[in-house]
C-alpha cells in the first residue's frame, strides 16, 4: 500500500518540478520499564509513525515530514518539501547525489522472540528482580534499573526505483547504582544491549549484572582521583571503541571532510596512525548495531578507514561521496523520519592485534589502565582535532602491575596524535552497542556500535579531579 501511494507522490513531485524525491516511512513500537529502589517508577510504552520526504528541485534540497501519513497529508508534505527547496534555490549549493543502483530488498534483524509478544508482567519482574538485587544493604542509596526495547520498520522508497524495507528489533537493560560510603557519594552506570529479540533478555543473568554495578559503585566511593598530567595508558575493550569513535570516527565522516572542517581532510594515503592500527566501519558485526542499508537506500558496505596506519577512506552519504568522486559507503543515516540523513558511523572498531593484557601492562612504569564500565561518553571538536571522554572507575599501573582504583578520570587528546601513539593492540576484539545511549550530531541521535581489543597508548592527557 505504501508503495502504491509513494508512486503517486513521486508523480506529483515530478509535476511540481522535482528531479529527485525519496520517502521514508517509519513505524516504531517501544517500551521502557523503569524500576527505582524496588518500586516501578514508570512503564512507558509508545508507538510513533510518520514519513519524511526529501526532494531536489532546481538543484536545491528541501525536506518535510509529518506524523500524519494519510495520502492527502503526505501529498501536502510533498508540496511543502518542494516549497522548501524552492525557497533556497537562489542561495543553495547545487545538490548532486552519487549513483546507487536501485534496490528492492527487505531485511530484518535475526530475532526469535518479539518483545511485543512478551507479557508485560515478565518485563516488570525481570527489571524488578535486577533492581532489588542491586540494593546491597545501606551503602546503595539508589538503584535504578531500566529494561527497554523497540521494534522498528523503516521503508525507503525513491524516485530512482529503490524500495528498501528494514525491520530492526533491539533490547537492553541498564543499571544505575549510587553508593554513599562515609560521606562520599559515587555513581556507576552500565548497560547491555543487542539487536536481538527478547531471547537476549531471557538468556542472561541480570541479577549478577546489576549486583556488579552496585559493587563497583561502592568501591568507587573509596577511590581517589589521579593527579593531572600526561600518562601512558592501557585502554580496555569496553572503552577503546569510545576512544576511537571520538578520537577518529567523527573526523572521518565525509560531511566534515568535504567542508574541510576535519583535520583528516586531504590526507588519504598518508600515515595517520601507528602501523598496528586498522579501523573498520561495518553495518553488521557481532554485538553491534544492525544496519544493512542506510536511510538513502544505499547498502552499508564494510569500509576500511585506516589500514595499518594509512588513511584509506572516509564514511559517506550519497552527497559527500559525489563530492569526492567515490561510491557511497552507506553511512547516510537519519535519527528518524523527521530528520534528514547525515553522515554517521555504524559499528566503528579497531581490528585485533597479537598482545595480551599482561604483556601490555608489564612494561608500563607509571600509567593508568582505563576502563569503560561506568564511562560517561565523549565529545570531539573535529575542526580543532581535540577530543575528550570520561572513563569509568579505572586502575593505576605502577612498575608493570595494576594498582589502586581511581575515579573521575577525564581524558583528552588530539585526533592526529593519539592513534600515532598506539604501541600495542590486544588479541580479542569485542563490539558493543546500546539501546539507551547513542551518539549526538547536528541535533540527531544515532545508535552506533563500537569496540576493539585492549590497546596501549603512549601518551594521553588526564585531568585531575577535585
Amino acid at each position, binding site marked *: 500500500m505504501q508503495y502504491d501511494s509513494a508512486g503517486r507522490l513521486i508523480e506529483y513531485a515530478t509535476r511540481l518540478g522535482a528531479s529527485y524525491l525519496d520517502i521514508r516511512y517509519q513505524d516504531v513500537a517501544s517500551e521502557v520499564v523503569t524500576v527505582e*529502589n524496588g*518500586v516501578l517508577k514508570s512503564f512507558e510504552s509508545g508507538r510513533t509513525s510518520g514519513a519524511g520526504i526529501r526532494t531536489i528541485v532546481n538543484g536545491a*534540497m528541501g525536506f518535510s515530514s509529518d506524523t500524519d501519513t494519510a495520502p492527502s497529508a503526505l501529498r501536502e508534505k510533498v508540496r511543502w518539501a518542494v*516549497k522548501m*527547496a524552492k525557497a533556497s534555490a537562489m542561495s543553495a549549493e547545487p545538490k548532486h547525489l552519487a549513483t546507487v543502483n536501485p534496490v528492492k530488498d527487505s531485511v530484518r534483524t535475526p530475532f526469535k522472540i518479539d518483545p511485543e509478544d512478551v507479557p508485560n508482567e515478565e518485563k516488570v519482574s525481570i527489571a524488578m528482580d535486577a533492581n532489588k538485587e542491586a540494593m546491597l544493604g545501606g551503602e546503595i*542509596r539508589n538503584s535504578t534499573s531500566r529494561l527497554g526495547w523497540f521494534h522498528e520498520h523503516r521503508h525507503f522508497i525513491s524516485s530512482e526505483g529503490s524500495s528498501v524495507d528494514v525491520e530492526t528489533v533491539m533490547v537492553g537493560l541498564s543499571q544505575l547504582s549510587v553508593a554513599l560510603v562515609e560521606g562520599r557519594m559515587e555513581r556507576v552506570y552500565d548497560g547491555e544491549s543487542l539487536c536481538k529479540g527478547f531471547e537476549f533478555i531471557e538468556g542472561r543473568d541480570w541479577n549478577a549484572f546489576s549486583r556488579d554495578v552496585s559493587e563497583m559503585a561502592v568501591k568507587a566511593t573509596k577511590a581517589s582521583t589521579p593527579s593531572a598530567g600526561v600518562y601512558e595508558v592501557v585502554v580496555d575493550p569496553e572503552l577503546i571503541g569510545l576512544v576511537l569513535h571520538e578520537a577518529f570516527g567523527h573526523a572521518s565522516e565525509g560531511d566534515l571532510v568535504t567542508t574541510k572542517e576535519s583535520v583528516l581532510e586531504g590526507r588519504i594515503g598518508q600515515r595517520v596512525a601507528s602501523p598496528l592500527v586498522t579501523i573498520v566501519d561495518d553495518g553488521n558485526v557481532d554485538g553491534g548495531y544492525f544496519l544493512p542499508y542506510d536511510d538513502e537506500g544505499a547498502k552499508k558496505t564494510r569500509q576500511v578507514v585506516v589500514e595499518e596506519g594509512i588513511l584509506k577512506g572516509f564514511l559517506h552519504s550519497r552527497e559527500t561521496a559525489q563530492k569526492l568522486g567515490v561510491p557511497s559507503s552507506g553511512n547516510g543515516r537519519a535519527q528518524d523520519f523527521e530528520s534528514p540523513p547525515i553522515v554517521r558511523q555504524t559499528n566503528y572498531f579497531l581490528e585485533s592485534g597479537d598482545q595480551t593484557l599482561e604483556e601490555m601492562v608489564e612494561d608500563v612504569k607509571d600509567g593508568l589502565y582505563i576502563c569503560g564500565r561506568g564511562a560517561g561518553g*565523549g565529545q570531539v571538536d573535529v575542526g580543532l582535532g581535540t577530543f575528550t571522554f570520561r572513563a569509568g572507575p579505572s586502575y593505576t599501573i605502577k612498575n608493570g602491575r595494576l594498582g589502586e582504583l581511581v575515579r573521575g578520570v577525564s581524558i583528552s587528546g588530539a585526533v592526529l596524535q593519539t592513534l600515532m601513539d598506539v604501541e600495542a593492540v590486544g588479541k580479542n576484539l569485542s563490539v558493543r552497542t546500546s539501546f539507551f545511549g547513542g551518539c549526538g550530531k547536528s541535533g540527531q541521535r544515532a545508535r552506533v556500535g563500537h569496540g576493539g581489543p585492549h590497546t596501549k597508548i603512549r601518551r594521553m592527557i588526564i585531568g585531575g*579531579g577535585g
Partner: protein
Amino acid sequence: MMVDLVEVAERAVAVAERLGADEAEAYISSSSRLQVSFDERIDLTSATVTTGLGLRAVLGKKVGLHANSSIKTKDIEGVARSAISIARVSPSDPDWFSLPTSFGSLPVEKTFDKRIAETSPDLLVEAASQTIDTVRGYDPRVTPIRSTLNTSVTHIAIADSHGLALERSGTVVSLSLGAMAEEAGKKGLSNEHSLTRNWEEVDFKAMAVASAERALRVTDAKPIPTGEVSVVWRNDLFARVLDTMFSRTLTADSVQGGRSPWAGRLGEEVASDSFSLFDEGLRVAGVGTREFDDEGSPQKTLTLIDRGVLSNYLYDCYTARKYRVSSTGNARRGYQTAPTPQPNNLILQPGDAEQEELIRETKRGLYVVEAIGEWLSNPISGDLSATVTNGFLIEKGELTEPVKGVIVAGNFFDMLKGGIDLIANDLRNSGRVYSPSVRVLRMTVAGGL
C-alpha cells in the same frame, strides 16, 4: 490550530474512563518547525510537523502510560486500552495518591511570537543568507560551517479526570553558528549559540561578527603546561556547567530516590554567601516560561540556594505529595514520557562586576569561552572537568595567547564554597539555564603533551 487539542485530550480521558480507568490524564503536543542548515551556502531547508498523545491511566495505585504519535480519533481507543493494560500488570505504588487535582495557569510575557508562528521559509533563508554574508564579509579567510537556524511553534493541551483542561502555545528560535578561519595552513574554529522565544531577540549580526572574529584569533591556539591557574568561565558555558551539576540533582525525585548529593541538607550552608540560585518560572521571555507546567500547575519563582544556604528542591505533584508540600510547578515531560520535576528557568544570581573586570582582576589565568565534555562531569561526586576548545591565556589582566586542548578540572562543591570568587553581571542562557560569567580562583589545568 485546525484541531482543537483540548477537545481531543478530553475525549481521550473520557474513553479511558469508559474502558475502566479510575483516573486518566491526556497530554497532547503538536509542533511545527522550520529549519535552514547552512555553511558557506544554504544546505537544506526543512519543515516538520509532529503530534503526539500521551495517556496515563490509573487503576487504584497502579499507573500505565501509552503514547502514540497519532492524535486522530480512530486511534484514541487503542491508546487507552494499552495504557490500561499496562496499569493492570503494574505493581501498586504505595506512594501514589492521585493525578493532579488542583491546577491553574498564570499570565506570562513574551513566550509567543506571532512573527515566528506565521513565518515562512523565506524569512529564515533570508536571515541565513545575510548571516553568511556577514561572516564572509568580516574577513575573506572566514567561512560559516555547520550552522542551523530554526523556529518552532508548540501547542500543548492537558486534560484529566479531575476537571483539568488547559492549553498553551509557545515559540522558540534557535541559531547555532559556526565559523572557520584558515590562515597559513592553520585553522581556527568558533561557535556561537542563541536560544530565545522571540525573533527580535536574535542578534544575527553580533553573533556572526563574534564567531568570525574569534575563529581568526584562535588559529594559533595551543595547550598551556599542566598546573594551577585562575579560570574565568564565559556565561553561556558556565550555564552548561550549572545545568550538569544542578538540573538533575536539585529535583525532589532525585532527593527522594537517594541519588542527590543535596538530600537531607536543606538549611545547610552549601555555598558562599555570594551564591544564590533561583528557578524563575515566570521570567519574561524565559526559555522555560509557561502559563502552567506539564501537569497543569502554575509556575513560580523558587529560591533554591539563598546566599549560600540550600533552601528548596524542585517538585512535581507526585514528589510534592510524598513530602506533604505543594508542587512548585516544575513538572516537565514529552508526550512519550511520564512527568518528572525539572528546572524551568534556572538562574545564578548575577554579581556587580563587568565581565572585563573578571579578566582585569586576574594576574595569571585562563579565560574559557568554549569547551567540550563539561556535560560528562559528575554531579554526584562533584568532579568537574571540561576540555577547552576556545580559550585565552590571561596575563596581568589581559587576554594574550589563544589556548586549546587542555583539561580544566576541579571539584564543583569546593567551587561553590568560595572557589568561585567573582561573579559578573552579564546573565546569558544556554537552554533553560541562565548564568553570568564567573571566576574560579584556582583550578587544575592538564595540558602540554
